[in-house]
């Protein structure tokens, strides 16, 4: 057989030299769990690869130079116009290199898709609790890559030196200058002197094509290695526990699927880039510090910064002959600071609050961690308001709302909407938990109405399927913390639970564990036979730490479901 011959020939030759048979066997049989949401990270990865490919193509013609030349190229509308070599070479790529425009557009769309995929991938990780032990470090690596991707994108769209990208650079300069004490120096060092100077494009170029992609590539490798080494998380389901991983092996299944997915990503970008124009720099014209066009919008991922700059009230302090521009400094720094710091600390804050230091490999369903889900939605709402305000001129225009009204609304909404999002999300989660319990207790409605001999009408239900039941029962009971104030008044509080910090922790723990009690208020009434090994495992009976059964009922008594 040809397969055997190939193995005996090439495989044998290689194995004689590298002793790979064992390692590769394990590798080929490595199990990859399946779920649509696991593809989000792959979109990010493949966008990045496509960015590297198309970006390399673009570097073959792009001139990262701010030397002024007079354009005499194929785009006749700009004939005789003075512009930088960077801008002229971008026109050249668009109009004189076959496939150049397509590559430029794929590159730009891929950058947008890259950041979007990272964002959604991060939300998936957060909402399913996939950042929990042992994956905290990988979460931090992901956050770092997200930040790098934002900077990489900003630098990238500055390179063509067109009027729109110049506005972005000018804002960057203004935000840098607002930093107290060192801001002016930073701006002068970045731009090589007064704005705009002649250094910024070559400097951004080398950062954009070498330094930052290099860093991202290194971090992607570590990110994937850790994912590989720790084995991927899996969604709850029948037979899936924290001690196993269920799915299809790498060879041939995962390889084929992921290969197909790479081509789907590439095809999606190619279709978008064929039919949807992006960044037509020839319409914007070359940069000059005097011009700007109305409706200047950055790429979507910078929109939230734009929005926060727009909604900030005009605050400024002059103290001891120095100016602190709060109106720029706060919106430039605080929103991103809140989101990134919060995201970075959360994997360490959550176990401190819950006392849960176990490994988790089965993902949470978002409803089963109502407080975490609500906090995540708070962040989404905060970001969302900033982002919408970043497009308030477009909104005002399309919906015929006065421009200033949109900003005034946003100034309140940025506080109100996140709080509302928290409350609403939590309610929805608890409602979904009740629905799950109801399904477990009463089964699925069949729509069949039966009349009993007594004349009574009842609706028939049937128990949920084994698979569905495993998912419905995947919620793990919360761990108990030692009480902050022992109720007998004699015992000393446990270490770590004393004083203000201990009380805070205890209170946070209560908030965190708010859930509908799992026994539905009347024992183990799951409406189906139990005691089956899978289900007990799915309940997660704490293989490292004992679980107190008492806390299962530790919720608001009002939240017992109807029985």
């Amino acid at each position, binding site marked *: 057989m040809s397969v055997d011959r190939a193995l005996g020939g090439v495989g044998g030759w290689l194995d004689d030299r590298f002793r790979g048979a064992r390692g590769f066997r394990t590798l080929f049989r490595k199990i990859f769990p399946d779920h649509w949401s696991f593809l989000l990270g792959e979109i990010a990865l493949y966008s990045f690869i496509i960015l590297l490919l198309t970006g390399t193509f673009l570097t073959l013609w792009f001139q990262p130079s701010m030397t002024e030349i007079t354009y005499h190229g194929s*785009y006749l509308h700009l004939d005789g116009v003075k512009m930088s070599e960077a801008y002229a070479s971008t026109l050249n790529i668009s109009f004189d290199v076959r496939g150049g425009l397509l590559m430029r557009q794929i590159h730009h769309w891929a950058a947008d898709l890259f950041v979007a995929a990272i964002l959604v991938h991060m939300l998936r990780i957060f909402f399913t609790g996939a950042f929990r032990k042992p994956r905290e470090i990988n979460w931090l690596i992901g956050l770092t890559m997200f930040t790098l991707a934002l900077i990489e994108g900003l630098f990238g769209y500055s390179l063509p030196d067109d009027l729109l990208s110049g506005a972005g650079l000018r804002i960057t300069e203004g935000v840098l200058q607002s930093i107290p004490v060192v801001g002016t120096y930073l701006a002068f060092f970045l731009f090589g002197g007064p704005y705009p100077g002649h250094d910024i494009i070559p400097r951004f170029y080398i950062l954009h094509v070498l330094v930052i992609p290099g860093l991202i590539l290194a971090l992607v490798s570590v990110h994937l290695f850790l994912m590989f080494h720790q084995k991927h998380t899996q969604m709850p389901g029948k037979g899936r526990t924290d001690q196993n991983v269920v799915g299809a092996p790498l060879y041939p299944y995962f390889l084929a699927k992921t290969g197909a997915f790479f081509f789907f990503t590439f095809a999606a970008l190619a279709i978008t880039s064929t039919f949807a124009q992006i960044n037509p720099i020839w319409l914007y014209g070359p940069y000059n*510090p005097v011009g700007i066009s109305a409706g200047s919008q950055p790429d979507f991922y910078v929109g939230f910064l734009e929005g926060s*700059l727009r909604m900030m009230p005009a605050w400024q302090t002059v103290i001891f002959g120095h100016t602190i521009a709060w109106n720029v400094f706060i919106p430039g720094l605080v929103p991103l600071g809140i989101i990134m710091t919060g995201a970075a600390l959360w994997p360490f804050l959550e176990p401190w609050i819950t006392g849960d230091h176990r490994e988790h490999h089965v993902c949470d369903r978002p409803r089963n961690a109502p407080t975490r889900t609500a906090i995540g939605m708070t962040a989404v709402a905060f970001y969302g308001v900033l982002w919408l305000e970043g497009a308030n001129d477009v909104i005002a225009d399309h919906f015929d709302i006065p421009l200033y009204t949109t900003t005034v609304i946003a100034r309140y909404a940025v506080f109100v909407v996140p709080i509302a999002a928290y409350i609403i999300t939590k309610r929805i989660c608890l409602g979904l938990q009740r629905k799950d319990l109801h399904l477990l207790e009463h089964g699925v409605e069949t729509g069949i109405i039966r009349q009993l001999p007594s004349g009574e009408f009842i609706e028939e239900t049937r128990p949920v399927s084994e698979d569905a039941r495993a998912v419905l029962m995947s919620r793990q009971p919360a761990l108990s913390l030692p009480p902050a104030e022992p109720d007998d008044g004699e015992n000393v509080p446990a270490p770590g639970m004393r004083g203000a910090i201990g009380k805070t922790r205890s209170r946070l723990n209560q908030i965190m564990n708010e859930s509908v009690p799992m026994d539905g208020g009347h024992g183990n009434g799951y409406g189906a036979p139990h005691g089956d090994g899978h289900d007990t495992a799915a309940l997660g009976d704490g293989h490292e730490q004992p679980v107190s059964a008492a806390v299962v009922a530790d919720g608001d008594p009002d939240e017992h479901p109807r029985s």
Partner: protein
Amino acid sequence: MSEVTAGGPPAHEGHAGPDEEPGGLTAGGQEPADPALSVAAVPHRVIGTPPPAAARTMLASEPDPQPEVQRELPADPPDLGRASKAERVVAACFIISMLAGIGFIVAYLAFQVHSVTGVLHSNLALGTAMSITFLALAVGATIWVRHLMPDVDLTEARKPMASAPADRAAFAETFTEGTEASQFVKRPLVRRTLIAATLPVALAPVLLLRDLGPLPEKSLDHTVWRQGIRLLIYGSNRPLKPADFASPGSMITVAPEGYQDNFDALAKAAVIIIKLRPEELQPPTVMNWTVDGIVAYSKICTHVGCPAALYEQTTHHILCPCHQSTFDAARGAQVIFGPATRALPQLPITTNAQGYLIAQSDFNEPVGPSYWERS
């Protein structure tokens, strides 16, 4: 040579997996090149006596004497009829992909660029071909996986991430031994001087970045405007006379004469002039700095420096399109709305002997966004 498949792997849950049959991989009568290879591969194989390596290589073409272990992956999907149908669909997809790939090459050769229409057609042709190439590949491969490959759901054991206590202890011992042997802890003189030696090296990169740019000094406080410089219309470079404004009208961007193409200068010195009816101008506009209802303001927004380029005639509002700071042109360009904290500085203007608009002096305050050194 059927060992690889015949000796197929049993369920590998719980134990490390079967022997890799080095004899099979190095078949053709060779001895295993590395005796350690076979030794390493054998232990978890069987409890009994393993067949001698030499005997196995001699029997390389014989069927494996061991009872066949149930394979983990079925060789075929259950419904072979459906699979054959899927096979044709997959093949069709791959053929479409290949044709589209050829189409891409043809489009590359057939469509010339160098003009807007040319680029339009080339982009459409190349992009469509590329899209179909990848889409057909992706669809074909997906159908292949879903309908040709047999369905499997394998379970692999997952061990806790933490090492076994014995391994940890052994590592701790190794580490301690190494640390002791290095004398790093025992000899603080070496340790401290080493740390001292690295400090300057760590500082060097920061130092080396010092020449990235000059220090700002006072350069942000001033612009190139000074007494007598004419105001030129930006773009056409024509000097302006008050009579050029027939009636109160729109906003005109002007540049200082001699600096029309100097971006570094313009980034601070860009100015807008607006003609209003003289009675419309109100304090805090400085009347002595206006000519005939013509008032000049810095175009650089005091928020983060975008050009404040939008003007609404009826309300005299100047709007910066970046963050919507709004200034009242009739009242000294004071902030009406938005994040800007300061009015647009007013440029003192007058006319010279020939009647052209000129600057009386530089702005009397720094233009553009706030910065730390601004007082």
